[in-house]
């Protein structure tokens, strides 16, 4: 069964996804955090594998990545941790990170180990569409991994159509062209852009990310999309010191707001 497809077909109301960097704040907290997030009501997850030069990320995720690397996180260790993923977590899980660690691990090895762990999709922001189509799409398909593409306000309609045709999970709609961790300000322009995407009636569900940090921005995003992704705001919580696991239910409840399941 395709967990992502199932989620978007059966989910009533907006889906909430949470991003966190594997290996942060502690090397071995990955599955504890994932499990706590599911229990708290997150609908799907993005687990970031850290990279030394994350050019699409703002300071919060940069710092979490550096700390994770200092803690010794590698793709090899992450896949070892993920061996028990499906014993503890049932919601869809994406892996998110930059292309160079994937290349060094080997694309085939990466897809195989991700699939084996029960990962549903992969988000690699700096993997170009051309290279994906030519070199990687076959491997992704063989292992039934969804490749998630990003769309920004500057992405042309023609390119969005192409992305839609290559996607089989969801499309990651950036609230603005920015690095991660900026606050969403819904101006008329942003609203027009969200409306424009919605009116395109894409085949894939659309999930909005970048700048979603609280209930208000979550609600706003969900007027136009099937869900929203919170990253930096959650990573900040993880960095807030001991007891971060216990703070997760409250964090999720606040974002979703009462009455939303």
């Amino acid at each position, binding site marked *: 069964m395709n967990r992502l497809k199932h989620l978007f077909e059966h989910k009533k109301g907006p889906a909430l996804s949470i991003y966190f960097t594997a290996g942060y704040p502690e090397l071995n907290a990955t599955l504890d955090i994932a499990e706590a997030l599911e229990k708290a009501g997150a609908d799907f997850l993005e687990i970031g594998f850290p990279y030394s*030069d*994350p050019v*699409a990320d703002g300071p919060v995720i940069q710092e979490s990545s550096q700390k994770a690397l200092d803690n010794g996180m590698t*793709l090899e260790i992450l896949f070892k941790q993920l061996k028990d993923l499906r014993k503890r977590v049932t919601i869809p899980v994406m892996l998110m990170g930059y292309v160079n*660690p994937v290349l060094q691990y080997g694309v085939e090895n990466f897809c195989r180990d991700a699939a084996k762990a029960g990962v549903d999709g992969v988000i690699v922001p700096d993997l170009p569409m051309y290279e994906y189509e030519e070199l990687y799409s076959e491997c992704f398909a063989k292992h039934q991994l969804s490749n998630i593409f990003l769309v920004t306000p500057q*992405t042309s309609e023609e390119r969005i159509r192409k992305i839609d045709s290559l996607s089989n999970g969801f499309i990651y709609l950036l609230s603005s062209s*920015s690095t991660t961790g900026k606050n969403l300000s819904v101006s008329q322009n942003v609203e027009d852009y969200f409306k424009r995407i919605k009116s395109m009636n894409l085949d894939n569900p659309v999930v909005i990310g970048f700048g979603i940090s609280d209930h208000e921005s979550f609600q706003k995003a969900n007027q136009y999309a099937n869900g929203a992704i919170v990253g930096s705001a959650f990573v900040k919580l993880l960095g807030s010191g001991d007891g971060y696991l216990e703070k997760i239910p409250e964090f999720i409840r606040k974002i979703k707001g009462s009455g939303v399941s």
Partner: protein
Amino acid sequence: MSYHVNEKGYYGDFGGAYIPEMLYPNVEELRRNYLQIINDESFKKEFELLLKDYVGRPSPLYHARRLSERYGATIYLKREDLNHTGAHKINNAIGQIMVAERLGKKRIIAETGAGQHGVATATVCALRGLECVVYMGEIDIKRQAPNVARMKMMGATVVPATSGSKTLKDATNEAMRDWINNPVDTHYIIGSAVGPHPYPDMVARFQSIISEETRWQLKEKTGKETADYVLACVGGGSNAIGMFYHFLDDEDVKLIAVEAAGLGVDSGESAATTVLGKEGVLHGSRSILMQTPDGQVVEPYSISAGLDYPGIGPQHAHLFKSKRASYVSATDDEAMQAGLLLTRLEGIIPAIESSHALAHLEKMSFKGGETVVVCLSGRGDKDLDTYIRYFGL
């Protein structure tokens, strides 16, 4: 074999445009337009005029007699150090700002290591009246203070890069982040032959003036357009690719690129990418870079801020893999000695970057009568503090 970029943006196995979607519209706009813009007659005319009257080109090809005597070969120095602002970087900065203008951009950003590219960019922004923001590693800001002051005088904002190793790599990351956050009105003037396609090709074309002039200058001086050896230092590789460009198809010209070995290639404190690196992706292109087995980029080291970069441009990776050029290295000590030697023999203080190329002369053996061209990519004024400290002057 072709040593140039193909229509997909690759040099053999290297190149491409590994960029997040946020950068795609800008890079794609550039890719679609750059050749048409730079091949346009009015562009060419204006570019040539600026190179002549503003930069002071052609830069001399100087027969270094005492250096030649010492090594037993006929050695010419391509004097990019005599350009306005003191290095080859201005060639590319002028070309790119003209491209940016024609794309209707109002704001210029750049990264810089030694500060030469930052100064060149700040200079052309002053010349054309465009806003300029330069990212520079916090460590480099300290070791290249005069260049920081020059940029500020020109009206540029210098932003310290405080992440990672706080040098050129991190300044490049910060510049890319700026570009992501300013997707419409900003052009990023990359200073080295790195970055996503079409940057490496565009930078190489603007720097190719170095070898274009060298050919006719050699013809005037020796009766022959080519040399036996052509040497240049390599960080990201912009002066080297400019120096090699018009010799690439003359297979009898031996091209030698000199990397910075820092304290020695095996010391753990080095920037010798072709020795220590593996294939991978950094700053938007597939190339060779210094990295851990897990694909994390390793912090390089060199006494020279301009060579302190963990990768090389994709065209260099191709020239290395295809063996068209040989990649060697010189340590801090070898470079510093070579810099002092040139000063004593010829009265020219070279940039420490360029001193790396000069240092390799020491390791070559000549039969006598060979013609050698060394790219003197920049002058050493900015490095005086380092020279003074190193030699206890």
